């Protein structure tokens, strides 16, 4: 489902960029939730937003380099989330700590987190960016008004 622009006045919420590692997931969730609150996302939808952000970021930590960046942007009546950093690891040895801190990477868990994101969001796409490797993008439509 593609997000349709809502008929609403922008909240004025600015771009939020948060670097993340396995040890900063609660920090990322808190900032994402507060940012979504300032944008006017209703409470129940906000819980879904925070869960989607967490699962996408956790996926990047588990299956990517162990760190990355979260970009949040409000535009055209929707919240746009980009999770950058699921690219190839520069050094597998460097990743070990981060991966262990974020749980075991199993075949079962691989993909389930993004499947959860897909169910929660209005639109999810996975692409690549030259400097960041894999990028997960999803949107949450804001209510009209």
């Amino acid at each position, binding site marked *: 489902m593609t997000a349709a622009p809502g008929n609403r006045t922008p909240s004025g919420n600015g771009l939020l960029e948060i670097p993340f590692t396995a040890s900063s997931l609660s920090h990322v969730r808190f*900032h994402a939730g507060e940012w979504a609150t300032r944008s006017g996302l209703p409470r129940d939808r906000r819980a879904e937003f925070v*869960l989607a952000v967490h699962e996408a970021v*956790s996926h990047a930590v588990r299956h990517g380099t162990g760190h990355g960046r979260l970009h949040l942007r409000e535009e055209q009546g929707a919240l746009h989330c980009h999770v950058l950093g699921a690219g190839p690891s520069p050094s597998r040895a460097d990743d070990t700590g981060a991966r262990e801190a974020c749980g075991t990477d199993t075949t079962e868990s691989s993909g389930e987190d993004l499947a959860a994101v897909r169910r929660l969001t209005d639109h999810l796409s996975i692409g690549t960016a030259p400097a960041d490797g894999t990028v997960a993008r999803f949107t949450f439509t804001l209510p009209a008004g």
Partner: protein
Amino acid sequence: MPVAVDARTMAVEGMRLGDHAFAHYADDDDRWEVLSTFTQIGLTNGEKVIALGDPAVEHVDVLERLSTWSPTAEEAWIRGQLEITSMRALIHPDRRFTAGRQIGRLREESVRARREGYAGLRSVIDMAWVQDLSMDVEGVMHRETHADALFADRTYAEICTYDRRRFDPDVLEAMRVGHPVVLLERPGDLAVHHSVNGVHLIGDADAATAAPFEAALRDALTDAATAGHLLLDLTRLCFLSVTCARSLVRLVANARSCRRVDVLCSSFHARLLDGVGGGVLKNLVLPHPSKSSQ
């Protein structure tokens, strides 16, 4: 010394106006996390926040530390929604702390905040002021246990944060017991409280806390095998990841001797547990959406 977990323990994200909380730390970085989280939630809710910091820490450093979890702290400080001060300044021109003087001043600030159009007032108080003003512990305890009127109309909330390196364990325990709310040490922590009613999980269940989360569930299900029934209270759980929700459902599914597991949780967590397979388990009873806590 670990701080006990009980029916009053909660994560800082769960605090509301009207709450009076005990917080604690033993690390100079960790000390700011609860305070800045509490500050940011207040700023987002349109409340005024007063930070009464450690007198040994410069106000500019307090602002910088609060900004770590509170990205709007500096803007709020410039427009006056966030004030950084000290207990010494709060009770000025008095030089000696009395519970009456301090409570009276906080009440004045609370009234002023609402007059200025804020939804309420939050204060964060680093209890390092106790040594700064040469206050005796009995006097502080008297204040902590006689401040109910400040919170009665639910327009004021307060965190009193104690450095475990400065206070004796007995004093800390007395202060903990003297507060209606006790906070987890850091955002993202998970705590477990076993009561006669069942097991209560408090805080965040994610990859960082998955091991104690699963261990607590496993132990509780084993202990409940004789009775055949377990109450699982997730109402103080702030965050539940998909992976931890799946773990919960798997553990309950495998606990064949536990004929019934009743879950108390938010409607969102009920939907999540239902969505990862909990809805089809015969021994797992999830709350009806209209009956679950928000």
